[in-house]
């Protein structure tokens, strides 16, 4: 057991012990332990295997800045992949295994890959995948060897909530500078949200104690002040994982994503400690000094018994004191530097007093593993020569890299400061502020002062301007970062990137192959592309790159890590579909009558009504027959329905449609065709004039929302004060059609339905079954018919009443398919089916609906030009003898002498006529010849005869049918 006696401020609850299993062994822990801390307390030193070479790995950053400790967790019947052990609190009963092993972490059968390292050069995948012949072989092998956790595809679907939060100032990071910033912003009157990925505020001040039993009083006071400040809300255990436009920051908590909108953002994330690069630096037991300090002070775990500290800053000396004060034997402090500054000197004297050996000018040569592959010895050179020290833990404290991920995502920049030997803030986008280690501040006093300034500025400007120059580090202050903590070994295995198993020579070789900028290096070598996104590796890689090129780091830039900053469970990101399906007020009536649904725009509509013992075709034919022979009723409530009113309404419609509406008589309707500025047909509908200054008109189902919006733009652009109301959802609408429709309607209304009083194309407002309706005599399906529009809340009642009233006449509801056939028999086009994105009004023989003598309408100028030219295509009707096995379908091509001359746009067997009829867009010369050669799906060509339309009732007598006829 490596668990220490209780420590002030520890995060574990010793009153609640628990056990879980790791790789089949029982491991004890306490509530509050992360998986990693409990494993360390239980003496487990190898927690995972590396990605490429399957080398045994232990805890390195203990901050989720490496992914050595990545687990598959079986809990509650679920198998959760890629759980980050460093930061995930462990639960009792969890069954945990390391990812990426074959046969367990202790005896991974893929460990032989380590010996193949020589044969796996940088860019191996790219090289392997170059040859087409071997591709399948490599692919099979890589698929088997690579990948981390296993996805449980049988896991039940789980909806994860998304939460939202708002604040004036979002402070990211609750270390000393972040706490100070939050407090200053709140004092400036701002509503502040302070987030930190850790479970407690205080940051490194809580664990970098230099042997003291308590954190500094100043930090405790700061934490107390923030807790007492009503304007600061603190969200702990939440990682600000990305920065999106206008201060929109997703904060990832254990349960959900909280999307925070702030008016200003203070970046106070601090820095991640960086490893030294030398042979064997990845052996279990070699870890960052801050990781060891976190294990001690947060979880009361001693990570080793006898250590050496590889130091290049005061922080390393402080860590050595922390080790000593918890009974860990410090064999030596090995300083890479030749001289030390005043900050180090304070700790150094105490260590010397305690009898610790402190050496300067040290170069590590190799860390050597012992039992279980864990570090047992360090070989190094000192001024006195080659030495070695026996240890079971090596702590590295050679420098830090500020966390710049969010800064880069926000559009800020950094520059390399050779005084601080780190990248520091250089520029900030409006409304963002930075403080703490990001600006080069390291001491507590510097951080608190820096945070105060940033918080004050954020509250004062609230995102209005908010650039603040960086570089808070006092000139000449002792540096915490070593310029080049990289030590080559002839036998390699000096790891820069632990996620991807990349060594010094991989960077060198990539450079040699020409991938010698940070962006190219990243993509070729996959440096920094592992789950930790380079938090522990990018800086050292850049240092090696710069040295290979003989340049300074000032000439190089960091790559931008992508949001999310840390890996996030897919279930947190997954959302539900929010595209609504619209339903008409009559929807349920269709369902009870056996409607088979089809999508129409955003709507669902009955394609037809299924009937027992009838095929689809039979059911549709029966519906067509009812309309032609008796009476049918269709729900057309999906049509766009618009009211335009005011003295300019008629003129507005004149400009909108190709036809003329300002001279339309009150109580009449007219067909409206709409084209765009190029003359292409985009919509059609029926326009009714209900009053001198009131028009009511319909648009096609799919276009209604976008067209209504465009009407508003045009009215604005043209400066026409016209009132526009979208009534699409307000009205239910039916078409009652068939020879018996007048008789059915007459039984329900007092309105005089005689042809003289209510002629073809007239519109009336009247009561039907006591309900106020708008009625229009229309002819789309080619029979006597009434379109009835009624406020949506009365739709169901009227639908039922009409069907009831029509029962004796043999009324049937009909669906979209029957309507399509009925209109096809009449040769009426459907915009978007019989036209496409380049079909103009003249090509569909609609010149009759185009009034060129108006002062202006959209597309007029283009149609005038087109009218001077021969038609490119024309819409014609054709017929075929029914019953052929090779039935053409929509979009089948029309071939003329080996070239494509057009295509079929609509086709079907007319139940009324008993043969195949269709419409085709075709070369006018081919159409004039009277025969079309249709190429059917099989490739065969069959001949159709061009015939005039309408196919049915060419004179239009049926729709004009008078009473008693």
């Amino acid at each position, binding site marked *: 057991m490596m668990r220490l006696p209780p420590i002030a401020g520890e995060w574990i609850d010793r009153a609640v012990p628990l056990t879980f299993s790791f790789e089949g062994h029982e491991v004890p822990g306490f509530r509050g332990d992360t998986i990693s801390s409990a494993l360390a307390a239980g003496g487990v030193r190898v927690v995972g295997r590396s990605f490429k070479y399957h080398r045994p790995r232990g805890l390195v950053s203990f901050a989720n800045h490496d992914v050595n400790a990545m687990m598959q967790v079986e809990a509650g019947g679920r198998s959760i992949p890629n759980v980050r052990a460093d930061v995930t609190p462990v639960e009792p009963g969890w069954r945990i295994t390391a990812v990426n092993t074959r046969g367990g972490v202790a005896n991974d059968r893929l460990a032989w890959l380590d010996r193949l390292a020589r044969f796996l050069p940088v860019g191996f995948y790219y090289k392997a995948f170059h040859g087409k012949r071997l591709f399948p072989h490599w692919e099979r092998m890589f698929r088997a060897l690579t990948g981390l956790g296993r996805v449980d595809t049988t896991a039940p679907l789980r909806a994860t909530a998304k939460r939202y939060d708002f604040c004036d100032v979002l402070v990211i990071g609750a270390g000393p500078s972040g706490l100070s910033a939050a407090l200053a912003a709140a004092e400036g009157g701002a509503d502040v949200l302070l987030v930190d990925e850790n479970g407690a505020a205080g940051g490194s001040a809580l664990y970098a104690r230099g042997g003291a039993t308590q954190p500094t009083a100043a930090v405790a006071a700061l934490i107390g002040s923030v807790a007492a400040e009503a304007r600061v809300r603190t969200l702990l255990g939440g990682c600000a994982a990305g920065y999106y*436009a206008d201060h*929109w920051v997703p904060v990832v908590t254990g349960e959900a994503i909280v999307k925070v909108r702030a008016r200003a953002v203070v970046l106070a994330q601090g820095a991640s400690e960086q490893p030294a690069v030398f042979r064997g630096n990845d052996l279990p037991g070699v870890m960052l000094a801050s990781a060891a300090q976190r294990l001690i002070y947060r979880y009361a775990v001693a990570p080793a018994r006898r250590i050496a500290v590889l130091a290049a800053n005061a922080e390393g000396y402080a860590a050595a004191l922390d080790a000593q004060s918890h009974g860990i034997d410090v064999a030596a402090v090995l300083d890479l530097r030749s001289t030390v500054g005043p900050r180090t000197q304070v700790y150094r004297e105490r260590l010397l007093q305690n009898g610790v050996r402190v050496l300067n000018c040290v170069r590590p040569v190799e860390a050597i593993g012992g039992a279980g592959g864990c570090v047992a010895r360090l070989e190094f050179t000192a001024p006195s020569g080659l030495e070695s020290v026996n240890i079971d833990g090596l702590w590295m404290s050679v420098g830090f890299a500020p966390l710049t991920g969010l800064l880069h995502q926000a559009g800020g920049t950094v520059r390399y400061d050779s005084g601080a030997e780190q990248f520091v803030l250089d520029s900030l986008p409006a409304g963002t502020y930075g403080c703490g280690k990001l600006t080069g501040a390291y001491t507590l006093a510097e951080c608190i002062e820096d945070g105060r300034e940033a918080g004050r500025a954020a509250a004062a400007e609230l995102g209005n301007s908010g650039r603040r120059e960086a570089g808070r580090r006092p000139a000449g202050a002792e540096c915490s970062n070593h310029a080049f903590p990289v030590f080559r070994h002839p036998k390699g295995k000096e790891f820069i990137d632990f996620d991807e198993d990349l060594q010094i020579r991989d960077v060198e070789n990539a450079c040699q192959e020409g991938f010698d900028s940070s962006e190219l290096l990243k993509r070729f070598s996959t440096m920094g592309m592992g789950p930790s996104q380079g938090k522990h590796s990018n800086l050292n890689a850049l240092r090696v790159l710069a040295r290979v090129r003989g340049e300074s780091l000032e000439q190089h830039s960091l790559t931008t890590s992508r949001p999310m900053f840390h890996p996030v469970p897919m279930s947190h990101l997954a959302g539900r579909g929010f595209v609504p399906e619209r339903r008409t007020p009559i929807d349920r009536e269709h369902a009870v009558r056996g409607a088979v649904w089809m999508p129409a725009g955003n709507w669902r509509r009955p394609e037809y009504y299924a009937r027992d013992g009838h095929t689809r075709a039979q059911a549709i034919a029966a519906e067509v027959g009812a309309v032609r022979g008796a009476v049918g009723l269709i729900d057309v409530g999906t049509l766009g329905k618009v009211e335009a009113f005011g003295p300019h309404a008629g003129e507005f419609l004149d400009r909108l449609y190709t036809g003329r509406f300002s001279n339309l008589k009150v109580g009449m309707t007219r067909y409206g065709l709409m084209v765009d500025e190029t003359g292409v047909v985009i919509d059609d509908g029926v326009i009714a004039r209900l009053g001198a200054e009131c028009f009511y008109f319909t648009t096609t189902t799919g276009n209604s929302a976008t067209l209504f919006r465009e009407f508003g733009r045009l009215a604005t652009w043209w*400066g026409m004060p016209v009132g526009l109301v979208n009534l699409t959802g307000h009205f239910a609408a039916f078409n009652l059609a068939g020879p018996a429709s007048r008789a059915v309607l007459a039984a329900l209304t007092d309105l005089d339905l005689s042809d003289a009083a209510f002629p073809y194309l007239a519109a009336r407002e009247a009561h039907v079954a006591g309900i106020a309706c708008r009625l229009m005599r229309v002819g789309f399906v080619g029979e006597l018919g009434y379109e009835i529009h009624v406020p949506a809340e009365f739709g169901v009642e009227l639908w039922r009443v009409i069907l009831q009233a029509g029962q004796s006449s043999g009324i049937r509801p009909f669906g979209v398919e029957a309507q399509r056939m009925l209109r096809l028999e009449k040769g009426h086009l459907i915009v978007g089916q019989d036209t496409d994105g380049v079909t103009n009004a003249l090509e569909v023989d609609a010149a009759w609906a185009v009034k060129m003598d108006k002062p202006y309408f959209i597309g007029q100028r*283009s149609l005038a030009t087109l009218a001077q030219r021969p038609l490119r295509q024309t819409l014609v009707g054709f017929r075929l003898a029914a019953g052929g096995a090779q039935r053409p379908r929509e979009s089948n091509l029309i071939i003329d002498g080996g070239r494509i001359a057009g295509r079929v746009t609509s086709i079907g067997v007319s139940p009324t006529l008993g043969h195949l009829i269709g419409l085709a867009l075709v070369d006018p010369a081919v159409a004039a010849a009277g025969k079309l050669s249709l190429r059917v799906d099989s490739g065969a060509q069959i001949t159709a005869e061009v015939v005039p339309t309408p196919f049915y009732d060419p004179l239009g007598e049926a729709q004009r049918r008078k009473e008693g006829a």
Partner: protein
Amino acid sequence: MKLMTCPVNGPRLISEFVYAGELRPAPDPATSDDDTWADYVFNRSGVAGIKHEWWCHSPSGVWFIAERDTATDVIMRTFLYRAPGAAE
């Protein structure tokens, strides 16, 4: 998510807005020749820079003009079309 300021409804999420192209002066259909007219109806300028664009706040149907730098996606200002004092 990006914000946009509707001149009537104030700052709202960009997902509530619909873009409808650049505000472009139309040539006089009565006097322009075919080439001028064809250029107007078929061609659009994709040159990055500061543009005046039609935008609509979809839930309320408010149309307005946004002055936006298409190179940086920074919205300089938004205003109602032909509003007093607003340059076009």
